[in-house]
């Protein structure tokens, strides 16, 4: 808000767009350097660009009159210079450098909404000055980087702030290579030509009664094809490398691990994988939750690990890989793993008993995403600062993705997130309920079934049917959606939830599937429970997109049982 009022709002946005990647790069490098220096490996490649990058940030900040940031970058340069010699007491200085680089990145990011005050980093700069003075003076061994209990408390607070920034550090500017724009313009030219062709065909048809219907069809097909390409090109411009979210995690994991007295290394792979800006923006928060959970609850203390014959330093791997039109993200730790018995016990206590007596391990782990399940008293791994896995699951589902977990007790846990490349366009199944049409995201559809007589049963006012040997609840689409007209309910769409739970939805007809452009609903419509968004169909009419994940989860009260 304050950004809009700032006279240099546009310039500030540009400043953040340029400096944030630089600051994040610095933050990431110094963490790697700290490790390299400790392990005694060659760090030349990491170290060389640092001074130049800090200098650029300093210069840009000065240009924008951001004195606080300018001073901070300047002091970090000094600190960096002082650390180049391998003197005693360097560890403390490196600790300072890591903190300072993190602070710098946070402040640059915060500048997007409110430029920081000039003395914003005063306390930190004082610490640096004290350190530098001590170094230059007696060259006595500087204070050891031992953390007293109260220091640790402040560190915790800092790491929490990192998480919050991760949650809403949305990218507001996209840099697009000019070749991409050229390609876009070129495709647009083709659209204009195709449109002219269509206009021609229509005109000829009007002139000579009838004309050549095939010509009209050809022109229409041509326009369709080029529009499709235009959409593709346009979508391309919105794709960003996933490293934009990954970079800040190196520091998050390091800070968390320090605070917990654990040794954790974060390995990142596939950072160049590209995803839609919207997906990237909304991915930070669930990933922060998963990483925080892994560090705090998944990973054992170094002593515990050594006792179990594992290396004292734990590894968390964050990996992205593209599979056709999806991106698979995995968060893997080599910690203590999940306890299936504890999950099953808690699920039973909450009344979420699995459908059959001896559920497989995968089925049990799927239960962990149910609301209320991942709490501290059941599975220590799954608790985490009041955020349950159900929250992670619902934010991933809001992106039309899904999440699953696998675990080997004692060996570690892997969360896999399947995400669409874009959320602007969705493949959907169109269904008819009464006189109304709805779009069901195809990602949530397990199967469609034609309803045969005797297939549906009514058990204590709840519709049920057997599907692939599983008894699943069935909802009547008309009742769920509150329409007035009744219909044949000839088809059943089997929906699947993130936890691989299934639920049938009775509809009157299937109208085929197509790609639909997702349009958000105006807040004036409230948050209708069964509808996620809307789209405009080929005939110009609006159709609602069902929130099928929520319907499948049974989050919608069973107001919609079978017609009696």
């Amino acid at each position: 808000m304050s950004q809009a009022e700032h006279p240099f709002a546009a310039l500030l946005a540009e400043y953040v767009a340029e400096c944030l990647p630089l600051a994040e790069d610095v933050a990431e490098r110094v963490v790697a350097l700290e490790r390299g220096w400790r392990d005694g490996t060659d760090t030349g490649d990491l170290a060389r660009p640092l001074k130049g990058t800090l200098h650029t940030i300093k210069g840009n900040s000065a240009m924008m009159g951001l004195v606080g940031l300018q001073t901070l970058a300047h002091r970090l340069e000094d600190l960096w210079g002082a650390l180049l010699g391998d003197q005693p007491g360097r560890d403390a200085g490196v600790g300072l450098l890591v903190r300072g680089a993190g602070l710098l990145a946070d402040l640059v990011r915060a500048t997007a909404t409110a430029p920081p005050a000039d003395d914003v980093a005063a306390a930190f700069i004082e610490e640096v000055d004290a350190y530098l003075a001590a170094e230059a003076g007696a060259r006595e061994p500087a204070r050891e980087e031992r953390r007293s209990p109260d220091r640790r408390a402040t560190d915790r607070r800092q790491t929490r702030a990192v998480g919050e920034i991760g949650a809403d550090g949305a990218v507001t500017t996209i840099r697009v290579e000019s070749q991409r724009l050229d390609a876009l313009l070129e495709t647009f030219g083709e659209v204009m030509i195709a449109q002219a062709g269509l206009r021609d065909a229509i005109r000829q048809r009007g002139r000579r009664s009838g004309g050549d219907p095939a010509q009209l069809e050809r022109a229409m097909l041509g326009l369709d094809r080029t529009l499709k390409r235009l959409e593709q090109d346009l979508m391309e411009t919105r794709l960003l490398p996933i490293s934009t979210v990954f970079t800040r995690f190196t520091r998050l994991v390091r800070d968390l691990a320090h605070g917990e007295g654990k040794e954790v290394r974060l390995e990142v792979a596939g950072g160049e994988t590209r995803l839609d800006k919207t997906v990237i923006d909304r991915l930070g928060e669930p990933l922060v939750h998963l990483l925080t959970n892994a560090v705090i609850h998944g990973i054992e203390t170094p002593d515990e690990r050594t006792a179990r014959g594992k290396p004292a330093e734990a590894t968390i791997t964050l990996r992205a890989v593209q599979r056709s039109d999806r991106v698979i993200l995995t968060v893997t730790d080599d910690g203590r793993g999940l306890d299936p018995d504890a999950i099953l016990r808690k699920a039973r206590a909450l009344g979420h008993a699995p459908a059959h007596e001896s559920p497989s391990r995968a089925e049990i782990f799927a239960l962990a995403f149910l609301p209320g399940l991942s709490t501290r008293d059941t599975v220590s791994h799954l608790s985490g600062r009041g955020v349950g896995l159900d929250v992670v699951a619902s934010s991933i589902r809001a992106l039309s993705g899904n999440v699953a977990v696998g675990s080997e007790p004692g060996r570690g846990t892997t969360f896999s997130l399947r995400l669409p490349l874009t959320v602007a366009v969705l493949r959907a199944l169109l269904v008819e309920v009464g006189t109304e049409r709805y779009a069901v995201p195809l990602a949530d559809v397990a199967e469609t079934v034609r309803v045969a007589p005797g297939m549906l049963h009514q058990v204590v006012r709840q519709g049920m049917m057997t599907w692939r040997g599983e008894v699943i609840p069935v909802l009547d689409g008309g009742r769920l959606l509150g329409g007035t007209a009744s219909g044949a309910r000839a088809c059943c769409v089997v929906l699947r939830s993130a936890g691989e739970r299934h639920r049938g939805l009775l509809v009157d007809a299937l109208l085929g599937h197509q790609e639909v452009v997702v349009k958000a609903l105006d807040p004036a419509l409230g948050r209708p429970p069964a509808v996620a968004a809307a789209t405009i169909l080929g005939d110009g009419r609006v159709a609602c997109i069902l929130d099928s994940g929520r319907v499948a989860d049974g989050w919608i009260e069973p107001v919609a049982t079978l017609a009696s």
Partner: protein
Amino acid sequence: MTDSILDFAAQLDVAPAAPVAAERELHLVVFRLDREEYGVPIDVVREVVRVTDITRVPHAPAHIRGVMNLRGRILPVVEIRSRLGLAPAEVTPASRVVVVEVAGRLLGLLVDAVGQVARVGERQVAAPPDEVRTAGADAVTGVARMGQRLLVLLDLSRALSAFSPSTVPVS
């Protein structure tokens, strides 16, 4: 297709003006609900369009008729009749959707018909009479007399304030 606001601008010239010395004038878009005429300030009205298909949104708040396609944009359509305590009516060929901008958002008001743009001198506006005791009385800011006709002035931000998500109206 669309009755552009420009049509109204053209009508402005022919509408009877009543220039009284230094009196401020209200420019109002006039629409009809049942037999009553209502006016909303012209500067909140973006355009007036014919009613195309309105899609019902399941479990939407009361007073929301549905959504329609406004040139590729999803426009919520408000059943302003029920907001003002009138029974909902059928859509007829005369029905229109008045597209208004309130608090930065576009909303459509489903009305029975749209008339001309009227200019009303501020002195012709009286406080709403005590008889106005409909459900939507809080949204009525005054009554203007135009010759024999009576024009009910609406405060849209008040009439539509109920549509912020936190205060979904309970019918």
